[in-house]
């Protein structure tokens, strides 16, 4: 694999600035070539970029403040229904807040949740997985048994109980979700490290005098990233779903935060009276998660050499 040689060179100190830049660009081009083959992935990427833009520009594009309650505009239907007003395109909720504006601000929360959860889970997971896969022996046994224990619980139940311990709220929900997700990274990293550790380029680096830390992080880790990137994309969407589920159960973000799951929880009692307060937050969750999963599939196709050939 081209990636191996590159990393060996880096480890032994043979690198020159220019060739690495070239290989990096070539690899990126190759990645984009395969990613582009998957039409769904490109659509997913486009939708995701739009959602990111919406989240970043929320204060500019939202027609109202997400928390402003408009008297005399309770449970207004969307504009195309009888009684809808252009002022509130997607209607208003039970206390007269503009649903569209709340959804726009909600995008910020969902993306923030995804980024924080994945970063936490990836960092801890990779570190622990590296330790287990590199040192094996007792460290490995202890780590893997601990991961088995976490995986023995349904993730949402464990997250729910953790939030019960830590106290309901968005930050605690994110910590809980990151904790239940990190065993997947530990397992993936460990498996990849174990596969790479016996290869010649690692031995070469060791013979050249590289220490454990350098071997772990600079020699082996860069060659284990492909499955981790795919997993990160998939767990980004799971994080959004789980956080919304916790919000829906009343254990995630607390009202009046315009988090999509929390919005659904508040809307529950109106389901048979005002379909729009329930429908739109769910569509927002579904579209975001779907876009990320489409991207994840594309990433897998582009990064997994086994599937590339088929």
């Amino acid at each position, binding site marked *: 694999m081209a990636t191996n040689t590159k990393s060996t060179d880096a480890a032994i100190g043979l690198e020159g600035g220019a060739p690495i830049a070239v290989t990096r660009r070539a690899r990126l081009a190759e990645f984009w070539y395969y990613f582009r083959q998957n039409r769904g992935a490109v659509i997913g990427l486009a939708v995701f970029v739009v959602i990111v833009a919406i989240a970043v520009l929320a204060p500019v594009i939202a027609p109202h403040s997400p928390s402003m309650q408009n008297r005399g505009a309770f449970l207004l239907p969307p504009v195309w229904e009888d009684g809808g007003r252009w002022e509130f395109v997607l209607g208003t909720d039970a206390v007269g807040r503009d649903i569209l504006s709340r959804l726009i601000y909600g995008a910020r929360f969902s993306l923030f949740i995804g980024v924080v959860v994945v970063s936490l889970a990836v960092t801890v997971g990779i570190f622990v997985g590296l330790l287990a896969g590199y040192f094996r022996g007792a460290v490995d046994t202890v780590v893997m048994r601990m991961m088995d224990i976490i995986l023995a619980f349904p993730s949402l*139940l*464990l997250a729910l109980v953790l939030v*019960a*311990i830590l106290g309901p709220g968005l930050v605690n929900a994110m910590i809980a979700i990151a904790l239940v997700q990190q065993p997947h990274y530990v397992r993936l990293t460990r498996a990849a490290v174990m596969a790479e550790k016996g290869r010649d380029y690692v031995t070469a680096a060791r013979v050249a005098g590289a220490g454990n830390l350098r071997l772990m992080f600079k020699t082996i880790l860069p060659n284990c990233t492909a499955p981790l990137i795919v997993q990160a994309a998939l767990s980004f*969407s799971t994080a959004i779903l789980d956080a*919304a589920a916790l919000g*829906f159960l009343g254990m995630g973000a607390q009202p009046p935060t315009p988090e999509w*799951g929390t919005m659904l929880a508040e809307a529950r009692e109106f389901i048979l009276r005002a379909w729009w307060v329930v429908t739109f937050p769910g569509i927002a969750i*579904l579209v975001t998660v779907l876009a990320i999963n489409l991207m994840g599939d594309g990433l897998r196709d582009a990064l997994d050499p086994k599937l590339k050939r088929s």
Partner: protein
Amino acid sequence: MFRFLFSRLALLIPTFIGVSIVAFSFIRLLPGDPIMLLAGERGMTEERYQQLQSTMGFDRPLVVQYFNYLLDLLQGDFGTSIVTKRPVLQEFFTLFPATLELSFCAIVLAVVIGVPVGMLAAVRRGSWLDQTIMGSALVGYSMPIFWWGLLLIILFSGVLGWTPVSGRISLLYYFPPVTGFMLIDSLLSGQDGAFKSAASHLILPTVVLATIPLAVIARQTRSAMLEVLGEDYVRTARAKGLPPRRVIGLHALRNALIPVITTIGLQVGVLLAGAILTETIFSWPGIGKWMVDSVFKRDYAVVQGGLLLIAGIIMIVNLIVDVLYGLVNPRIRH
């Protein structure tokens, strides 16, 4: 085979001990004093506090407390609910059939639709049918099921009025539980319309709970099938002149199903996590709703016991799947 079974069982022991430590620590990690939680807002005298502390064993060293806890567990004592004062194990067994019935129907639905649909997608790879199936599977996989449930309620209960909104059976019917499974009990009761009522209550929750496993199984079947269809023995079977139906249905499917079995087994955790949401939406009186309610009522004895019991179920099912996998795939055993 026995050695294989034994080694898997042996692996389970440390995990179970770990899980019990998690459940044991849970009550002790909670902010606040578990005994003061018991007292609620009334508070209690210092004397009573000391007395409770020694009867509940909180004054002893943690290690001793843990071993006592483990001993109680081995004798089937999973604690007593703070709210209902009933043993947790008893409550669990009263509610578990409802979850089992729902999960069973959901997984059957997911397999019955997911496997053929995944096969179809693989056989017609690249066609519009394949794209439609895989597109729908990805939507199902991305579905926030708590929202999906609410949508179905709006459509089928609100607009069309076809299905009831919540519960397991209409209040018009009452019969003592025999098996705990409403479909069977309603038939046994012999009351007119009882079975129909039970079935109509079950439809929406089943669809909601089956959504994600269905999507996962369809995707997994497709990719397993694609892999197998490229194998030499499939080519040989085709070259022999066997009809495609036989090649796909017999030669390919059998081997493609091996990874699918594992996937189905792994769905048990997904089902129990999904049951938490599904049961909450449909007020389905199972263990998922029980756990959520207990978290809200701060009935931590139930949460503790329930955690352990649910983890136990998942571990046992995973063991069964492992063993089944070893049975159908001898390579794994060694």
